[in-house]
């Protein structure tokens, strides 16, 4: 019975994967560029959401460092894929450091490198801060992200300062973005559903009791934080290639805020929730652009208010926290058994 279910679920998962595959193959020739862009952003926000979900939703560490890790991932990866000709054109005020000028790597390697350097940064900040007990993590990571941004602004021979990087090769198409999303989902799924994942959830639920179980809680928190930082770096690297230009302003706290919204809207601790949250938030953010444009209703003219989008966005987050604090999924997970059960009106025992 259980074995049969396993085979069936594997079959269903592979089918779902195939359906997504066909869709990704179909989409570029049938959807306009704007819709494709949204699909791409959904994938990247899913990765970012999963990253923060591991840190915050699963391990219970309130971190505001996402934009900082993204920034690192974005610059590292971009530097490795920018052609030298483009580097010549960008770095006009200050010359690029010769080592970086020579650096080049295939896209997969570049994205991975972005993740690895972000993870190293996560390890470096995680060790001292999480040893303190983690209460200061929110503030410390917020500070860290700001420092990264200020540094990026002020080392023109490496980052081109406030001008940022332009003409980054647009390798991050649907295939890459969704490929990385599935990779992230798979890694997270395996981690969260292992006994290691149980230990992380134990730390979230009751750290004192987790210690009594022999769990070195600071070590586990550092590991979780570092893995999260890795995937935030991956997300940043992909986003850089998708948008083809980056500058330090892109990685302000509002970026972290978007990702936090993904996790909270989808459901803290639910992997499927992060993907759903990414879809909601991406579409909402696009849709809300309308409110920043001038609107005329008959003789009434409302001028566009810049920043209005973020105000409404912030209010939605507050409303979600008040009225649906568990997000769409709560901490539940999507399972084939659960889906089939609800499909049959709850009669089957899956």
């Amino acid at each position: 019975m259980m074995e049969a279910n396993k085979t069936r679920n594997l079959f269903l998962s592979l089918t779902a994967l195939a359906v997504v595959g066909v869709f990704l193959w179909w989409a570029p020739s049938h959807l306009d560029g704007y819709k494709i862009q949204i699909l791409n952003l959904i994938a990247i926000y899913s990765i970012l959401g999963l990253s923060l979900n591991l840190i915050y939703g699963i391990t219970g560490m309130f971190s505001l460092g996402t934009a900082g890790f993204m920034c690192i991932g974005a610059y590292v990866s971009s530097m490795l894929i920018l052609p030298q000709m483009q580097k010549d054109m960008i770095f006009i005020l200050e010359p690029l450091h010769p080592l970086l000028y020579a650096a080049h790597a295939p896209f997969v390697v570049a994205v991975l490198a972005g993740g690895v350097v972000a993870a190293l940064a996560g390890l470096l900040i995680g060790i001292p801060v999480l040893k303190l007990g983690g209460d200061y993590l929110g503030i410390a990571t917020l500070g860290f992200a700001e420092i990264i941004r200020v540094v990026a602004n002020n080392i023109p021979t490496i980052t081109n300062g406030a001008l940022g990087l332009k003409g980054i090769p647009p390798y991050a198409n649907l295939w890459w973005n969704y490929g990385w999303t599935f990779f992230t989902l798979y890694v997270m799924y395996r981690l969260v559903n292992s006994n290691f994942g149980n230990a992380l959830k134990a730390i979230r639920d009751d750290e004192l009791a987790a210690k009594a179980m022999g769990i070195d809680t600071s070590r586990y928190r550092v590991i979780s934080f570092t893995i999260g930082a890795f995937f935030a770096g991956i997300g940043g690297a992909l986003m850089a290639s998708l948008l083809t230009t980056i500058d330090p302003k892109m990685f302000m706290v509002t970026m972290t805020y978007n990702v936090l919204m993904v996790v909270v809207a989808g459901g803290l601790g639910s992997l499927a929730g992060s993907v759903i949250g990414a879809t909601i938030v991406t579409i909402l953010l696009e849709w809300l652009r309308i409110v920043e444009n001038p609107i005329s209703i008959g003789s009434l003219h409302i001028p566009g208010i810049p920043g209005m989008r973020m105000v409404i966005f912030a209010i939605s987050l507050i409303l979600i926290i008040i009225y649906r604090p568990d997000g769409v999924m709560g901490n539940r997970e999507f399972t084939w058994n659960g889906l089939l059960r609800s499909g049959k009106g709850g009669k089957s025992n899956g």
Partner: protein
Amino acid sequence: MADRPVILDAANLTMRFGGVTAVSDFSMAIQENRIVGLIGPNGAGKTTSFNMITGYYRPTEGKVSFLGNDITGMAPYKVCRMGIARTFQNIRLFKNETVLQNVMIGSQRRQKSRWWQAPLNLPSFNKEEREVREKAMELLERVDLHKVADERSESLPYGQQRRLEIARALATEPRFLLLDEPAAGMNPEESHVLMGFIRRLRDEFNLTILLIEHDMKVVMGVCEHIWVLDYGKLIAQGNPKEIQGNPKVIEAYLGEEYLADA
């Protein structure tokens, strides 16, 4: 009662919080494979003593040795790895996790595979995960919680939550188990069952057990030796008979009619 080797030796423990001395110059030597008790009125310093033994508090003065090793002020997770497990006065389960997961978490520290092997889907990793699950299930069967293995721990009735907390502690495979008021909130019927359960644990798992308890029936019924604290000081120790007849103990409990109906 013949002497057995000492498993835990707490010597001259003192714990001060600012101006408050919660425990003062308290010593106790616990012999292997015995069930012993620590009693005293509310606020006497019992839980504080537990916290000093298990590393949650570093004693202001004094020394804790376990199996001859100095464990004074050692981090709680290391104390656990030495072979000491505990429960908490206010149940502290991992409330969002299932009963089975709660117990599996106790095995995590003995697992050889590392976290990064999980995504690699290695057969050796999956095998160990399966073994941990099976072992946890076996343990649940031994404490009669296997039927609720997949329930969220928070949804269990109170008595079962207490039992699960003990099962979870056992999953760390301790040699010495500390129970902080295991019978709290139980009716006489449940406490009676608990007494049998504690004895069975000692025998089946080859444990030494120290329990804090307010229910005098339980204390007098299962403990072979008892220490009595009052205002952080040791006022008496001995077997249940000696404790029941000790005037100092009776005085400490005056107004709390525990001893009267014991």
